[in-house]
């Protein structure tokens, strides 16, 4: 059991929870979080927002019963963490862009800190949040509210583009990036049960057959993923 240090509202239905303790993990990996005993039955896979020596934090969107429970947590409450799971983002070299949509910005913060001054593109449908947090680690920062963030990227400028956001946004990004020479990596969101590769609930349809979002992903090279057949969560 771990102890919640703080759990604050960042925007409408978006919360940032900090948990005490020494945790492992790298950018793009996730933990299975559980703050209840039997129900909901499944733990919730949440990607690492930030990690420091004595603290780990998770940025989450309140969207169902599990995240609703997370929202109720207060400093001093206990929560169970299993992980870190998943492959995480590649150590991209050269000119890098991070493209986040909505709550998809969550795993990009640690990536911004760990990669070398990447350009940051953050798109939101209604209100922006945490954009200033990215600035100290970023080259250019582009923020868009209500528009189409993937239309604002000069794809040819980049060696690597890392993206996390709504399925439809990532699909549009992958299409626009085609032929630009940029290598694109997508971080996918899937419903999960075990989180460790045993149950095959989170299979992703890929070119060479199914792959597991929890252990082979959640980060995939864009050309691997069959966006024509995948529909997101």
């Amino acid at each position, binding site marked *: 059991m771990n102890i919640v240090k703080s759990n604050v509202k960042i925007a409408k239905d978006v919360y940032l929870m900090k948990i005490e303790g020494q945790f492992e993990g790298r950018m793009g990996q996730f933990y299975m979080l559980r703050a209840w005993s039997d*129900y909901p039955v499944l733990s919730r896979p949440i990607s690492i927002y930030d990690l420091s020596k004595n603290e780990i934090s998770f940025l989450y969107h309140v969207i169902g019963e599990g995240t609703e429970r997370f929202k109720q947590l207060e400093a001093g409450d206990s929560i169970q963490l299993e992980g870190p799971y998943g492959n995480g983002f590649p150590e991209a070299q050269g000119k890098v862009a991070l493209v986040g949509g909505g709550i998809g910005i969550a795993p990009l913060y640690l990536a911004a800190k760990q990669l070398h001054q990447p350009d940051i593109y953050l798109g939101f449908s209604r209100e922006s949040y945490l954009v200033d947090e990215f600035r100290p680690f970023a080259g250019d920062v582009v923020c868009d509210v209500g528009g189409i963030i993937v239309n604002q990227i000069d794809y040819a400028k980049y060696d690597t583009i890392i993206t996390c956001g709504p399925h439809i946004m990532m699909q549009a990004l992958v299409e626009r990036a085609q032929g630009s020479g940029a290598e694109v990596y997508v971080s996918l969101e899937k419903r999960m049960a075990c989180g*460790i*590769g*045993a*149950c*095959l609930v989170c*299979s992703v349809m890929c070119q060479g057959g199914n792959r597991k979002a929890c252990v082979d992903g959640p980060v995939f090279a864009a050309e691997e993923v069959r966006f024509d057949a995948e529909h997101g969560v």
Partner: protein
Amino acid sequence: MQNMACKIAGVPFKNPIVMASGTFGFGKEYAKLYDINRLGGISGKGLTLAPKAGNPGVRVWETPSGMLNSVGLENPGIDYFLKEEAPYWETLDTARIVNLGGGCIEDYRIGAELITAHEKKLREVGRCSIDIIELNISCPNVKEGGIAYGVQTETARQVVREVRQATSLPLVVKLSPNAENIAEMAYMCEVEGADGVSLINTISGMKIDTRLRKSVFHNLYAGLSGPAIKPIALRMVHQVAQHVKIPIMGMGGITTASDVIEFIMAGASVIQIGTYNFMNPRAGEQMTEGIKKWMEQENVSTLEEIRGIL
């Protein structure tokens, strides 16, 4: 001194905790969390003759005290298993159960033959990787309009008979709660020479997305598991226990040592843990301690003393 051990068709189980097919991979993943040799046994991911990609779309949905799954038997196929996973099973000190699925009777038979031939060859040189075949008759019978083999006794009989003839390995038939008459189904398995039955598989269920006005599952229906189904599972194990002499592997929503004791009292020799692995990934290593404690408190020295007492 408490003794939790038992045997099914000569195969020793050091305790009654067996991990259920489809929730435990082939064991490797959970072996990173704890020593899976402490388990009574493991049942591997359900295998079919050819690899299967499983169902598209949403594969899991939570329900009150349970979950629906629609994985659709995604698996790497029997050949892959024998080549890539069975060598790992050779190193394990726990009962190793291969779960065999199918599509047509021919697939079941060939699958059973392949597994048996592989194991025979190993045993000739004093090695061993598979102890039991668990036959999953919940697969749809493609030739007869997609209704699962496990619904009607006479349809299931054909599969059980065919697989029984195809293997000399101990054979346990996994029964579906969707069977028209599960006690009759179990009795059929006994008559056809099965060494045991395991039950229950998931209960067919449904979830509708009211906004989209369609099922959340591509396959329309999905399998319900978890604590929600435990009372039904327990009742069915008890019913089956009244009708057969062969051992029963009981399962369905077990989450506590006390649940395990209930299933044994209802007549199960061992039990299987499925959904609870997702609720508590260290379930396997914790459950046996709880059973031991209960036995101490109740002054029960072997589980035989309480098996089928109702």
